């Protein structure tokens, strides 16, 4: 008995599949991730309960989630916006760093009261990130340089160069690769609970702004059209040049702000590993949230739950926080397979070694 697998394209996607797919993806990832947990004799049900139920329902736990979701959301949008235009921004991490560095530098060297300093920091970080993001956008628009490679290279340039700055011009008195604690005027004030900083208010602002941009503005219309068919867009008079640069500028802007907010609101200082790879997880966030800004936010919250919870259970249950990276990676893995399952119908027929049955598989267009 030989299984014969035929794969054909689906015409349309059945409802149960398009809703079930994200859920199935997450469940599959959690299932596979339980293997490493069992290997270390840790009960996965306990861990997942802690991660998804216990932690987020406490005040401090929830605060952690929201606080962690902020950079994930902003960086996720930094990938999402260019993606809507058909481009990959893999440089969100680098743009994040650039914003953090410029914002921190201003905080350390400019004396102003909080009310003026914090907006200045944010604006400067945003502009810095935007300019840095513009580079791959420009290279693609003007010279057709692949933006995946250029944004990736610029990311490592930024993270490495930050290492230089933190051991040199920006180094604090501790002698480590970190700045001093930013002056009090630069620290983002807390709101509601000590673990939540006022920057989280930006989540709502940015979410609304992005939604409005994509769904209610002229620019959003052009972005979406180019993303669907650049040739038709050009023939219709839309300038792909301008849009390519614009989406990368916007992405860099958001990532830059995420960077400084993380520094000034969460850590209070800039040090080398302040970002656990937000810019890369952002790719997963954008992918999971492909259908709209709201979904990007949900995806960011989901990964926020994972990341924030992961730090906690590392302490309480002795689960290596690397497990979170594994779960994130597995989620992406199953997302990719889900894509395939959604687009193709897979039929498995069991055929005996019957020559007649075999010859019936004729050619098809």
């Amino acid at each position, binding site marked *: 008995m030989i299984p014969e697998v035929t794969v054909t394209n689906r015409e349309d996607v059945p409802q149960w599949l398009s809703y079930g797919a994200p859920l199935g993806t997450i469940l599959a990832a959690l299932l596979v991730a339980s293997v*490493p947990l069992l290997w270390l004799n840790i009960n996965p049900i306990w861990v997942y309960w802690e991660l998804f139920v216990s932690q987020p329902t406490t005040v401090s736990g929830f605060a952690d989630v929201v606080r962690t979701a902020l950079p994930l959301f902003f960086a996720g949008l930094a990938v999402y916006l260019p993606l809507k235009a058909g481009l*990959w921004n893999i440089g969100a991490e680098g743009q994040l760093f650039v914003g953090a560095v410029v914002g921190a530098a201003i905080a350390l060297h400019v004396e102003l009261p909080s009310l003026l300093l914090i907006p200045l920091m944010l604006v400067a970080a945003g502009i810095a990130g935007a300019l840095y993001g513009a580079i791959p956008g420009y290279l693609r628009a003007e010279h057709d340089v692949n933006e995946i490679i250029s944004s990736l*290279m610029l990311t490592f340039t930024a993270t490495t160069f930050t290492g*230089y700055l933190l051991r040199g011009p920006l180094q604090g008195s501790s002698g480590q690769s970190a700045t001093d604690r930013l002056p009090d005027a630069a620290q983002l004030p807390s709101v509601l609970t000590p673990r939540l900083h006022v920057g989280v208010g930006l989540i709502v602002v940015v979410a609304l702004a992005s939604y409005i941009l994509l769904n209610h503005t002229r620019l959003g219309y052009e972005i979406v059209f180019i993303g669907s068919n650049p040739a038709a867009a050009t023939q219709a008079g839309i300038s792909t040049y301008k849009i390519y640069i614009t989406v990368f500028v916007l992405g860099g802007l958001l990532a830059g702000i995420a960077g400084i907010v993380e520094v000034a609101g969460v850590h209070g200082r800039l040090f080398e590993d302040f970002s656990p790879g937000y810019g890369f*997880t952002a*790719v997963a966030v954008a992918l999971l949230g492909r259908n709209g800004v709201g979904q990007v936010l949900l995806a960011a919250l989901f990964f926020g739950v994972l990341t924030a919870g992961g730090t906690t259970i590392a302490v309480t249950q002795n689960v290596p926080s690397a*497990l979170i990276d594994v779960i994130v990676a597995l989620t992406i*893995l199953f997302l990719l*397979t889900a894509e395939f399952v959604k687009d193709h119908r897979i039929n498995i027929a069991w055929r005996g070694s019957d020559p007649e049955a075999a010859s019936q598989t004729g050619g098809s267009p």
Partner: protein
Amino acid sequence: MSLFAATLESTVRLATPLLLAAMGEIIAERSGVLNLGVEGMMLAGALGGFAAAVLTGSIWVGFAVGILAGMTLALLHAVLCISLNADQVISGIMLTLLGVGLTTYFGRGYVGQSIEGFQRIAIPGLVEIPILGTALFSITALDYLSLLLVPVVWYVLFRTNIGAEITAVGEDPETADTAGVPVFHIQYACVLIGGALAGAAGAQLSLAFTNFWGVEMTAGRGWIAVALVIFAQWRIIPLLGGAYFFAGIDALSFRSSAVREYVVDLVGISALESMFQFLLNPQVMNTYPYLLTIAVLWYVMRQTNRNELGAPSALLKSYDRE
């Protein structure tokens, strides 16, 4: 040992993982598949190799296991990208993340241990050559292996039937398919070899270079390997040169203060001193491979006759027979 000799010696040994990983990546990319998971596969090779060596006591068994570890992750990439037509960029980044996560997780138990790794093997006679001798002819078996692999890879890619078919698949899979070339088999094989060599590169790091395992010990070398392939414009000789160039930068960065002293003395103009202090700062130097790669890309894309330069034409495109 003079500064120059010491730097040269480090360069040769630092070049090995770059060379191995980049050769693997060239093979994969020439068949049309971009593999951004090299960093993850290198880590898998590093931990797999180290763990196997500790458990079996044999560094060669460790090396073999490291290769297998890299290949396993690569198999995932191959299935996703070639058979399921998933996006190559996402799959690669996912595998790096998976590699980092899995190795950090499972590697906990191996942190702090060390083994007696691959020893240097001196070639009598040749090792006597001043300066070059100790640098080039007193290196470990894996270093020799990587150097020997270069002409082999070159030969297979550019002087054999299979090499021509690989090129054809990476340029135009449809034409190759019509001509009867086994497109999918070739792509699978190339991606797996890429993973194998990435695993080998990682194993070299833990078994021959540092002789211990550390979390994220590849320190971005996988990404440099990816950059290197683009820097070399998918050719072997520039790859060899580029590997040594990037490794040289790495080696210099380790001896940064001595190098800066030397250069400042050499130049003598105190006004330029701060400029050299900056340019030869270790972290600043570590950005050069990335910046140079962008520069090469920018230069290439400005050429009007791009027929001899540039990526394989079908890179990143997933071929579907329909």
